[in-house]
């Protein structure tokens, strides 16, 4: 009995010792994967794998940019909304079946995200870290934050996205930025010479439910200015709720309706007697903003086309030689590698589903 007990205790101690050794042993890594570093919009230095093959895009608009840069095959997780974008589904049918790890409320489904095994997450940066940042910090996934407040930011975002994706995509990004800046330059050649009185007052409003205006210090303010207009909304920020009498007080010369369903809202505005006194309505200058792979008036890849469209809208005589439809076809074939039919083109310009 005594000897048995002593033997058992010795065995237990030995087992415990083995476990302890095993627990404290360092995992031996024969070969560390090569990495590179980039600095993102928040000033963070992010370590990425040298080759990125799996990208999760938490920023709805940016999905169209990833697609455009040729990174479609590397996209492994996206947002609930991006998955449902009709044009994205057409250009990139795979997107419907991608796992949706992020939703509109800025929340992340950790299991879905981890299940997709991304190397890096792309996200917009508006001055504060995303809501899900702390939730995923225990996991070894790099997060690259990209700027989104001005037109210039969009070029930076395209470059950064390209950088993250890889060499080939970087080259496409450089090409895109050249094109983007080329468009802006082409427009500004004329609009920079406009006197303040020659700039029409433009109101950009959303068409869903409540009456809002997109004001100063926003991307929309930027392209309005580049296109040769001035923002009628003297408020700061995106989507600010305003009363109708405030809009009447501002008396815009042009009204642009963004966010679906644009045509319906445009028709409603033109038909509403309360809006009839406003200059834009009286002169029939109420327009629906085009929308393709993403809304042209917000942060998607097609914002490069937005400045052309808006400039032609506001100053048709000065841009008589600019054919927006032709430019759109060229853009789609050059960057999305897609040939638009006339019907599809119409639906983009009218912001309807393909």
């Amino acid at each position, binding site marked *: 009995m005594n000897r048995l007990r002593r033997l058992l205790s010795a065995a237990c101690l030995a087992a415990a010792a083995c476990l302890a050794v095993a627990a404290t042993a360092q995992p031996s890594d024969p070969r560390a994967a090569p990495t590179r570093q980039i600095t993102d919009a928040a000033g963070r230095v992010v370590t990425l794998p040298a080759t990125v093959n799996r990208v999760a895009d938490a920023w*709805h608009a940016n999905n169209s940019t990833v697609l455009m840069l040729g990174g479609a095959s590397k996209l492994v997780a996206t947002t*609930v*909304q991006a998955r449902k974008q009709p044009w994205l589904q057409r250009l990139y049918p795979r997107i419907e079946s991608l796992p949706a790890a992020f*939703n*509109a*409320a800025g929340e992340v489904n950790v299991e879905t995200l981890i299940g997709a095994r991304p190397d890096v997450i792309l996200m917009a940066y508006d001055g504060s870290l995303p809501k899900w940042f702390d939730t995923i910090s225990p996991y070894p996934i790099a997060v690259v934050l990209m700027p989104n407040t001005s037109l210039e930011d969009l070029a930076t975002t395209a470059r950064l996205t390209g950088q993250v994706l890889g060499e080939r995509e970087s080259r496409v990004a450089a090409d895109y930025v050249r094109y983007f800046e080329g468009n802006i330059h082409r427009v500004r050649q004329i609009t920079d010479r406009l006197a303040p009185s020659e700039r029409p007052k433009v109101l950009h409003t*959303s*068409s*869903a*439910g*409540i*009456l*809002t205006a997109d004001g100063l210090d926003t991307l929309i303010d930027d392209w309005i200015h580049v296109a040769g207009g001035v923002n009628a909304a*003297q*408020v700061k920020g995106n*989507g*600010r*709720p*305003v*009363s*109708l*009498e*405030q809009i*009447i*007080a501002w008396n815009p010369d042009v009204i642009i309706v*963004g*966010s*679906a*369903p644009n045509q*319906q809202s445009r028709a*409603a505005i033109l038909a*509403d*007697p*309360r809006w*009839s*006194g406003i200059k834009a309505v009286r002169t029939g200058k109420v327009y629906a903003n085009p929308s393709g792979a993403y*809304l042209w008036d*917000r942060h998607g890849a097609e914002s490069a086309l937005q400045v052309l469209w808006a400039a032609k809208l506001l100053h048709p005589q000065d841009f008589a030689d600019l054919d927006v439809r032709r430019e759109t076809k060229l853009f789609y074939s050059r960057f999305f590698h897609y040939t638009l039919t006339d019907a599809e083109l119409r639906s983009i310009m009218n912001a309807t589903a393909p």
Partner: protein
Amino acid sequence: MSKPRNFALMLILPLGLLYVSLFVGRFPVAPQQVAHILYAQLVPTAPDWPRSIETIVLQIRLPRALLAMLVGAGLSISGAAYQGMFRNPLVSTDILGVTAASGFGAAVALLLSFGAVKLQLVAFAFGLAGVALTYALARVYRTTPVLMLVLSGVVVAAFFSALLSGAKYLADPESKLPAITYWLLGSLNSASMRSLAMAAPPIIVGSAGLLLARWKLNILAMGDEEARALGVRTEWLKGMVIVCTTLITAAAVSVCGIVGWVGLVIPHVGRMLVGPDHRHLLPATLSIGATYLLFIDDIARSVSATEIPLGILTAVVGAPFFAYLLRRTGGTWY
């Protein structure tokens, strides 16, 4: 305060504020211009004011002010009726789930990009459906005991709140989600003659019903058993009160979103001014509620270029006032 003076004040104050509301706002309008414009509606006069001002006064501010008064009056009289019927001064119009259900209906309408008219109808219909569900759940042996009503209301409201969260989850973050969010915070932003014409009948009919039965409401406030012993058909009366308040509240939510703290607080103000007798209380709440919400809405649309949601203002004003009431009465309401 003497009765005739009370009565005069309760009539003059809201009407006076209505006139003021017509020349207050982001767009500068002079008081005389308002007077001329209104006069011209009765006696045709050559206009010496720009068309835009007439549009603002008659097409934008007038329906909005009238709607604010209707909603304020309706929510207040409903709150008073419920507080009497449930014998509980902490009760508000949301207790049977009409607000949650109506809010969900509006969210669905926004998701599906319905126009203003359809949105109002859908929100109204959902509000009615929510209360019908609560009532059906609360039936016990052909009666609807108060406790069952309250519990069923909690369940139904929670159910529709969950559905509402689901709707927000599905909403596109660039447009639909902010629209739903702002709508839920309450706003008369979309007021028009048409929305006024749609919301007015249920609110007026519901308020009339409550006014007519206001003496019987006193008896109901003594308790179901006593009321029955006095020959009151309590089930019918409760049913009628519920139908009237639901008509009012569903119409209110369908036209201006969720505006809280009105149905809860105004009846208390009314009781402080005219006493608990519902014969005087219910008419008083109509006047006080109309004036209050009109005043709040004037602030919401005039103070800054960006509109402040009504629900935020009524909470910011109402909650501290309610806290003050609590301190003053020490928790006993008599």
